[in-house]
């Protein structure tokens, strides 16, 4: 009898053990890197300053288009430190002062900051209030003496400022706005007590000023009139000579200042450069005595002789990229030229004194997927034989950064990945059958060894060396980075489209780049200038019909920035990165709609909506057209006109007369928001591939509620126009936030709710039958999150068993947007501590697993919040039945549990989006967060109930079994002995 009782107790105990509540995402510190990876980037480099003299760690300080300033290790390209500045605080200039501070000028020259070079700590910050907006110039004296406080000169806001480089204090300020001057150049001759400022008034008068370094007084002022006007900038040639281009871009003007007088000298560009020369620009190059002119045919280096004569030294192809001048030791200057060859680049360094020959010529093999060279920065070092060696930092068309030295690529950084536009995933190829026995034996042995080590670790028997070994085994597990499909669906390719028009495939196992491809359709060409990527869609997902084909993705871009410009399209093989098809259709693209139909080769049907509201069907095959014709009655789409405040719904009308695959749209409905009271700030819809397991939701007391599950639900948030600005610009009385749930097939507003005294920005996520949105409550002055759940009331009567038996239920009636079901909504609001940058939700293969919200906070972290916390049925005192259901008692704020940050101790700097992809294993979802950094991890919102964790100790299991077997034998022997004794008795 007791045996029986215990048998019954045991499973209960085990169940209890399994149900011990713990935060589901919590990680141990040694599990970092186990199933997640984190990559740090900086973006396309805009400006670079080398710091190599007298420094133990040679570094380069860069500013980028992603508004990052960073210090990089020149040996390996690693990031020493990095700061992401605010989006409105664009860095204009960077430099190094006193050999220990990085100086940045940002916000159109109004904020000057100094950062400590070794660790990136901000040392000082000063505001330079100007009077009139102007261009911003930064001059830092090249002073190697650390102690000497030489001021930094900044021209911004039409004022010239001198700032102490030690503490950032403003020493003096001279206003040029009163003179009506627009200063173009600041020149600080070395060992001089004056600053030269050169500018123009009304584009027809040149002015030069000499300003005292210590006082800021204007010492000298010369002027000369030039009726032709000036195009672009005035650039210095030497300390007393400047060059400018007249307004017609055909005459070069040399301005020379001699004895306090300004002389002008005009030369026609066509006299210097023969042949046609349009689009003339003077390139800023800082070469002494030489300036460079770029035309549509060539780049010319023009020397200004002492007498003021112009002399063309050399002409090179205009595809050549020229670096700024670099001062070498004996007053010598060098600069670099890069020429693009066939899968090679030719780098040559020339000395200013000896232009005729290359000082250095190197040819470097270059992957053609990196495109052309966009920028080059050079730096010199002294070789052991006391000659000058050069290293060049080059920025490529795909935004990558490379360091070249001695004809080799020392390191490269894929910084294009800092500007991801869109993400999709692709399956890996299926594993080929046939594995060698030796390999299996080997891996089995390794596996066992690993587990024995792990066991030692758990039993605290392992030595420190072995602990290191254990960690290594965990991280390096060869399983996770294999190039084949796995059973659980963890291994995949993340295909990402970047701003540079390059497509990357990242392996989810370790984040390495499997392939990358610079798309031809997204490169500037004659047909398509300045193309930008828009969307990435899965094009072909081979399942059963076309298993031999590789999966492919569709890339849609736009030529130029206006909505009506032509489309650029590519279809790319997701396994190899080859562009299978490259199309340049003539129509524009405003919207890309994925249709849930496939043709016989498993190509997904897509509709591209152009600016004239015509739908273009892809792929352009008769088969696709046939499928579309059959289903066209059920194809609907909508457009959001944010400016006008109108939502419009469309259906397919007729074929249009352009070609076979073009269809006219028919406007079905419009929702017009009154422009004086509502302005659209956010629209969110459900993910097209989301799976909902069940429509029914069992609540306490065995009652059932039916979720209103519709793929055509759109969440629209509007605010009163006064409150559309940033926080602090509107009072609570002026601000009204209204949220709507709209059916996009009929245009019916299913639900509308207003939040008085609230404003945007609104971030929302819509999934199943609920929407969660984040906004700012001005009355409480806190952020809030609200949830709306929507239920189908028309099915509520189905609970009656009798009706079900008699058959008087409506379960068999089809679900249609036109059936106008009775809906019921529940809503609740909570406070949330942080600002939010992005919000997303976990998605699993079958939709059974409970959901977690993934919230990208202002600190660039991703927080996982159980959906149970945002359940509108929460109440202050839940009944016993509700407690059993798992309903939490209501609290006014949502909890922030540090262990539930999925990014744990990492930051995804500049976070822009969070993408979730279901794994094949129902419990698990793959999460990819991107911004300037990338982060990937695997989450199990309800813990991995369908598999053993990777930490599961097989060795312990084996040990237990062995112990049990031994115990059986021992007891058997003992009982035998006892029997024998009994018999002897």
């Amino acid at each position, binding site marked *: 009898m007791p045996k029986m009782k215990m048998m019954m107790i045991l499973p209960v105990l085990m169940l209890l053990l399994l149900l011990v509540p713990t935060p589901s995402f919590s990680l141990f510190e040694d599990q970092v890197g186990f199933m997640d990876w984190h990559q740090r980037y900086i973006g396309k480099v805009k400006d670079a300053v080398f710091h190599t003299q007298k420094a133990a760690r040679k570094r380069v300080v860069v500013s980028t288009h992603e508004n990052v300033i960073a210090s990089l290790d020149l040996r390996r390209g690693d990031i020493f430190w990095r700061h992401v500045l*605010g989006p409105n605080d664009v860095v204009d200039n960077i430099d190094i002062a006193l050999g220990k501070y990085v100086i940045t000028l940002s916000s159109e020259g109004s904020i000057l900051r100094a950062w400590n070079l070794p660790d990136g*700590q*901000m040392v000082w910050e000063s505001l330079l209030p100007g009077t009139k907006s102007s261009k911003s110039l930064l001059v830092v004296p090249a002073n190697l003496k650390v102690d000497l406080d030489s001021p930094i000169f900044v021209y911004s806001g039409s004022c010239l400022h001198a700032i102490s480089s030690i503490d950032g204090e403003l020493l003096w300020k001279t206003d040029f706005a009163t003179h009506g001057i627009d200063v173009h150049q600041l020149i600080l001759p070395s060992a001089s007590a004056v600053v030269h400022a050169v500018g123009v008034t009304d584009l027809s008068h040149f002015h030069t000023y000499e300003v005292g370094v210590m006082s800021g007084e204007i010492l000298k002022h010369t002027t000369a009139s030039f009726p032709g006007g000036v195009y672009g900038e005035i650039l210095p040639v030497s300390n007393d000579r400047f060059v400018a281009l007249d307004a017609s871009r055909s005459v070069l003007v040399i301005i020379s200042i001699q004895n306090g007088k300004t002389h002008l000298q005009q030369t026609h560009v066509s006299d210097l450069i023969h042949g046609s020369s349009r689009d003339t620009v003077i390139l800023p190059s800082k070469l002494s005595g030489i300036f460079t002119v770029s035309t549509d045919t060539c780049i010319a280096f023009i020397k200004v002789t002492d007498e003021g004569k112009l002399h063309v030294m050399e002409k090179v192809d205009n595809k050549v990229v020229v670096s700024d001048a670099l001062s070498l030791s004996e007053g010598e200057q060098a600069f670099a030229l890069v020429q693009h060859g066939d899968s090679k680049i030719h780098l040559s360094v020339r000395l200013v004194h000896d232009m005729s020959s290359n000082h250095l010529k190197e040819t470097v093999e270059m992957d053609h997927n990196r495109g052309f060279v966009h920028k080059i920065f050079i730096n010199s070092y002294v070789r052991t034989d006391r000659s000058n060696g050069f290293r060049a930092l080059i920025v490529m068309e795909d935004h990558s950064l490379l360091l070249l030295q001695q004809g080799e690529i020392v390191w490269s950084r894929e910084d294009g990945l800092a500007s991801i536009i869109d993400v999709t995933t692709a399956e890996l190829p299926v594993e080929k059958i046939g594995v060698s026995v030796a390999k299996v034996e080997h891996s089995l042995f390794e596996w066992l060894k690993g587990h024995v080590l792990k066991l030692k670790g758990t039993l605290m028997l392992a030595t420190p060396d072995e602990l290191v070994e254990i960690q290594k085994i965990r991280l390096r597990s060869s399983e996770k980075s294999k190039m084949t499909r796995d059973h659980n669906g963890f291994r995949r390719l993340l295909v990402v489209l970047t701003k540079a028009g390059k497509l990357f495939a990242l392996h989810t196992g370790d984040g390495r780049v499997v392939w990358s491809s610079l798309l031809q359709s997204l490169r500037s060409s004659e047909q398509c200038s300045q193309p930008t990527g828009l969307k990435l869609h899965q094009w072909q997902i081979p399942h059963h019909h076309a298993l031999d084909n590789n999966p492919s993705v569709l890339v849609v871009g736009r030529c130029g920035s206006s909505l009506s410009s032509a489309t650029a399209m590519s279809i790319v093989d997701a396994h190899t990165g080859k562009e299978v098809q490259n199309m340049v259709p003539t129509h524009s693209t405003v919207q890309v709609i994925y249709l849930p139909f496939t043709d016989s080769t498993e190509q997904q049907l897509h509709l591209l909506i152009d600016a004239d509201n015509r739908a273009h069907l892809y792929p352009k095959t008769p088969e696709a057209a046939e499928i579309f014709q059959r289903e066209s009655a059920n194809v609907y789409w909508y457009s959001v006109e944010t400016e006008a405040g109108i939502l419009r719904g469309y259906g397919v009308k007729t074929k249009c007369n352009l070609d076979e695959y073009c269809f006219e749209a028919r406007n079905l409905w419009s929702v017009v928001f009154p422009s004086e009271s509502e302005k659209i700030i956010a629209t969110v819809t459900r993910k097209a591939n989301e799976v909902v397991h069940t429509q029914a939701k069992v609540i306490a007391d065995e009652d059932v509620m039916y979720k209103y599950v519709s793929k055509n639900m759109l969440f629209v948030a509007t605010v009163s126009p006064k409150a559309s600005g*940033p926080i*602090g610009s509107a009072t609570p009385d002026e601000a009204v936030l209204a949220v709507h749930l709209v059916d996009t097939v009929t245009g019916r507003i299913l639900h509308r709710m207003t939040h008085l005294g609230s404003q945007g920005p609104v971030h929302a996520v819509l999934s199943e039958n609920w929407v969660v949105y984040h906004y700012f409550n001005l009355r409480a002055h806190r952020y809030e999150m609200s949830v709306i759940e929507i239920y189908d009331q028309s099915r509520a009567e189905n609970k009656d068993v009798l009706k079900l038996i008699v058959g008087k239920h409506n379960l068999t009636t089809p679900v249609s947007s036109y059936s106008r079901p009775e809906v019921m909504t529940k809503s609740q609001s909570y406070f949330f501590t942080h*600002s939010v940058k992005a919000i997303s939700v976990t998605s699993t293969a079958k939709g059974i697993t409970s959901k977690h919200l993934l919230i990208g906070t202002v600190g660039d972290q991703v927080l996982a919040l159980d959906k149970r916390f945002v359940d509108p049925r929460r109440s202050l005192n839940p009944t016993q039945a509700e407690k059993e259901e798992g309903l939490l008692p209501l609290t006014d704020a949502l909890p922030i549990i540090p262990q539930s940050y999925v990014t*744990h101790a990492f930051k995804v700097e500049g976070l822009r989006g969070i993408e979730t992809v279901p794994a094949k294993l129902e419990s698990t979802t793959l999460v990819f967060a991107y911004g300037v950094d990338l982060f990937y991890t695997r989450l199990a919102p309800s813990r991995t109930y369908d598999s053993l964790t990777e930490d599961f100790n097989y060795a312990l299991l084996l040990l237990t079994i062995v112990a049990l077997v031994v115990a059986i034998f021992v007891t058997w022997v003992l009982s035998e002995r006892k029997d024998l004794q009994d018999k002897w008795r």
Partner: protein
Amino acid sequence: MAVLQRSTLILLQLFCLLSLFTSYSLAIAPKNGGGYTINGRVKIPGYGAKGFGLPVKANNAKVILNGGEQVTFLKPDGYFSFHNVPAGTHLIEVDAMGYLFSPVRVDVSARNPGKVQAALTETRRGLSELVLEPLREEQYYEIREPFNIMSIVKSPMGLMIGFMVVVVFLMPKLVENMDPEEIRKAQEEMRNQGVPSIANLMPGAARS
């Protein structure tokens, strides 16, 4: 020393302001040209007043105005400032890895410049000075508990072993200690009941 001087200066300013207005006063300086400047300080405990350098953790700390409208960084002594802030009610957030800061509501008044209020939005506590301290430290990882024998015993497999041990070693002892008569009685009962069936286990089976 510069730090010291500055802080005394601010204190002096504060004192002046306090004497002028009875409400909370902060280092908010009016500025010609529409905007105001908000000056404040982030204080992280455990980091002494030894001087240069915030703790390594706080090296990348950022201060954010109105959810990203302006972003600024901390000076070595923890001071920060926002420039050109229009009058109104603003929100300041501190982003420092490893610490949770409450957002702060700051009112910049247009009518009487200098009169400003600040309050932590999480705790609704007013601040007399714009000195921001973390609510708590954040630990992103679970602490791995040291190995003890109990954790093995408590694990399902441990329980199984324990159960086996009990059955194997203690059960015979129990049977031995029982009165032989009772055993006989029990055996008789068993015989009377015959083969135990599931029906006997069912509730209400005793009645039949």
